[in-house]
């Protein structure tokens, strides 16, 4: 049985149209990332080996902490406009919201830290982040130390 000569052309046309069609907006505005929560203390101790790749945590003012323990390392997937809530070790809720992916590839992110019965601990933080580069929220007292929250988003 011989194939119709025009069949290949139609397949090529369909493929071309599929490639030419713009990618769905949802796929363009969906990013992956991770949230890591570190308990940092000024008392002497060890630094978690899983943090060795985080050069910023060895620089001032983080070098005032003499021990660091990685309490959480949570992968996240964000879609623009949707909230992603994570429970922190101190019972508070970390809310992350991807506002949008910028034309230059950076992410515009909103972060807040909420408390169950009291006003928000951190009502609003807006950050512009390049893929793979973290930003940090430091300051919550917990278990004799301070929580250091790092957030890093990638494609």
């Amino acid at each position, binding site marked *: 049985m*011989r194939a119709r*000569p*025009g069949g*290949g*052309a*139609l397949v*090529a*046309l369909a*493929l*071309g*149209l599929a*490639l*030419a*069609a*713009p*990618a769905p907006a949802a796929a*363009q505005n969906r990013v992956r990332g991770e949230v890591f929560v570190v308990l940092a203390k000024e008392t002497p101790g060890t630094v978690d080996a899983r943090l060795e*790749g985080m*050069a*910023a945590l060895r*620089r*001032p*003012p*983080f070098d005032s902490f003499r021990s660091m323990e990685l309490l959480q390392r949570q992968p996240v997937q964000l879609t623009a406009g949707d909230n992603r809530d994570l429970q922190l070790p101190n019972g508070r809720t970390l809310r992350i919201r991807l*506002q*949008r992916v*910028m*034309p*230059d*590839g*950076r992410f*515009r992110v909103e972060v807040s830290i909420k408390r169950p019965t009291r*006003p*928000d*601990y*951190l*009502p*609003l*933080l*807006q*950050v*512009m*982040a*390049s893929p793979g*580069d*973290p*930003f*940090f*929220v*430091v*300051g*919550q*007292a917990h278990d004799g130390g301070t929580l250091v929250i790092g957030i890093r988003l990638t494609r």
Partner: protein
Amino acid sequence: MTSPRPHDTLQTLYDGELTDGEAAELRASVGDEDRAVLMGLARLSEVVRAGAGAAEEDIAGESDALFGRIHAEIKATPQPRLSVIQGERRARGGAVAFVGLAIAAAVALAFFLRPVDTRIATPEDPEAPAAPAPAEHVLEAPQGTEVVQVDFGQHTGTYFEVPGDRGQPLAVVWIDEGAEALQ
């Protein structure tokens, strides 16, 4: 006895150029001399007709001989080889042309349908992208992270940058819980 008719008049009679009435009247009045002229015209006509037929036969004979020689020379001359185009091959050629047309159409569609964010930053829409900068200024996206806005709520705090492993600035927001931390 009637006088002889002019030859022109007899010629018109012989040629049939007179009306029926004129021809009948003339035939009734022709004498012996006129009849001899008419017979001479008839004989002359036969001679001319016979000569013309022979000439036609000669021309036809020469024409047949001429075309015979032409056909013989054509057969003797080497002819170029003709290539036969198969129907399937022609169809494939048409398909290839159609595929090329389809690809060209797809490329054109890709160009015209590519996603373009047409929003321009305005005070009413601060999240819209800024107007495109001149090409010489668009080298690459800034690296690192930076604070755009922060609301510490009931606390105090600060934000700054620390260098990352590539020297890129990394944003740090430091919240001072103050007395709350002692509670």
